[in-house]
């Protein structure tokens, strides 16, 4: 008789928002990097199927995408090994995997929400963390993802009234779904951008405080997108990079420890070149 081992399903973190351009992709790519840097097995799934930017931000040229995985699932059912459809991202010794959005728009349009959920369930069996980047709507796919997720990172920015209105609608809709309170984490990106609206006012309006606040650093963010290297992988880094690491530390239930750096090869490289 073989040894019975219980199947383990990894953590699913969905990055969701009801306002666009709030930094979902920037934050999800950085969180994937930081978790991978800490030695976790990480897969980042790009379910902004039509206009996803994960491959752009990481400068990947995926050979296979979510569409290919769906095709294979249609043919072979659960025998498909989802991990064969991933594209690795490597920076020095840090590695994580990406399930890329389809190359063509018509492929993206034809991804079935149920199939997409099967993909996430498959990946959960192989990875410690499955991070999912999404679009800013309550679509069928996103609603299913919210249900399945261990944690939903609900992102917002404070810029002008219409955005705040949509954040409020989003957070109220999430409340109506009756998820456990600590499943939904309200994250504010770009906190000190030019605006006359105070964070306190927004928190009052939403009826809860932000779980985490990320500082505005448009320059650093743009640079990292241009270089294709997430901020947390560059040491000697930016305030935003630090805040992102702090955020990940809170997700992994450990206070961020600077000594982690010393075990990671690129930190001495950074000391030399940084």
């Amino acid at each position: 008789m073989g040894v019975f081992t219980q199947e383990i399903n990894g953590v699913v973190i969905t990055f969701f928002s009801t306002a666009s351009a709030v930094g979902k992709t920037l934050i999800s790519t950085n969180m994937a990097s930081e978790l991978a840097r800490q030695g976790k097995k990480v897969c980042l799934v790009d379910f902004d199927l039509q206009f996803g930017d994960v491959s752009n931000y990481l400068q990947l040229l995926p050979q296979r995408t979510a569409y290919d995985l769906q095709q294979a699932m249609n043919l072979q059912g659960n025998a498909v090994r989802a991990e064969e459809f991933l594209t690795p991202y490597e920076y020095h010794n840090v590695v994580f995997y990406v399930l890329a959005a389809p190359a063509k728009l018509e492929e993206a349009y034809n991804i079935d929400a149920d199939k997409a959920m099967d993909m996430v369930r498959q990946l959960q069996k192989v990875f410690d963390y499955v991070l999912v980047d999404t679009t800013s709507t309550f679509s069928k796919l996103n609603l299913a993802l919210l249900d399945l997720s261990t944690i939903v990172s609900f992102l917002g920015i404070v810029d002008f009234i219409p955005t705040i209105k949509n954040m409020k609608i989003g957070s109220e809709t999430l409340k109506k779904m009756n998820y456990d309170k600590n499943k939904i984490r309200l994250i504010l990106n770009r906190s000190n951008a030019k605006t006359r609206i105070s964070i306190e006012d927004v928190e009052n309006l939403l009826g809860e405080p932000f779980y985490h606040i990320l500082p505005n650093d448009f320059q650093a963010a743009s640079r990292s997108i241009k270089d294709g290297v997430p901020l947390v992988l560059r040491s000697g880094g930016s305030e935003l990079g630090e805040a992102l690491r702090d955020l990940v530390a809170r997700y992994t239930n450990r206070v961020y420890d600077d000594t982690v750096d010393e075990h990671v090869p690129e930190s001495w490289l950074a000391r030399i070149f940084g």
Partner: protein
Amino acid sequence: MDYRVLLMESDRLMLERLSQVINDTPNFSLAARFQNVSDALGQGAVFNPNLILLDIEQPDGMGLIDQFKRAYPTAAILCMGEKWQAENASQSVKAGAKGYIIKPFTGMELQETVETFSRLGGDAGAETLVFFSPKGKSGKTTLIANLAMSLARKTREPVGIIDADLQFGDMAVFFNLAPQTTIVEAVRDARFLSPASLRSYFMPVAPNVSVLCGTPTPNMMDKIAIDKLENLIAMSRSLFRYVLIDVPAGFNPTSIAAAEGSSTTFMVTMINGAYEIDHTKRALDIFRDWADVEERLKVIFTRVEPCDSRSKMELAQKLGYPVAEIIPNEYTIVSDAADKGKMATDIRPDSPLSRQVDRLADQIIGRRHRIRWAAV
């Protein structure tokens, strides 16, 4: 103006009922009434009518329009039907009628319908301008709101905005409205409505500008069927000279249906230093299936700095497609305006933003000879 009405209605009871309504409506009088087309064509002229109400739900109803036009060259023709059918309405207008009214109608509806076509002048049927964006945060809602104001100011003709962004429509916020009726009710009631009664679902926001607001909460979205939305858009075309439609980002049933039926689709993208041009390029490839894509699909970039002809040219080169207009980055003015429920072009009519929006309005007005009623 006083209307002397010739009523052509084959159903005896309906004829009685409508005669009563016409006689009870201020400024309208019944000049003559007929149950038989041959009589109406041969005998009505002695009563010198200036408005013909014509039942077109009969054999070759459409063909009758032309015959009545020849028999009564100076009278306006209003077609009547039992229920609203976008196709009938658009065909009858193409055939030379001024409008379409659902019978039985009230005196108020008759007045409003006549008022609408007199305001719209000769060629009824609006241009529908759909604003599509690959991803969210394109600046299109700001653009639509300000452009509508500019079009109304320049043409003094009625402009309607439909907020079909069914989950997170922002138009109500932009105009600081607390709408009693939204697109949900309009679509729900559409089969009972005629264009004249649909007008009350639009909220007036400025002289000649009114808005049909979006859904208040996102879970209402499955209440709007695409065919009903198409019908609503078609009906709105007989109320306005221009109908501007805000659709959800990306390719979805709503944005696809609206774009397919549009006179012109504007693809709006905000420049933000990442991969926006790539996204626009990919979206553009889908629209290239249109035989008349260069005529019907116009590209607009927002937040372009510096906002000059050189930037516009460079963007067009990168994209491999003409750029119709570029809109400058005026974050402070735009957010200030949106926070106050006012229009950026009203707060700062002298700003580069206002100038570019006005230029776009001029382009749209200049193309009026190419109205396409029957794009649906």
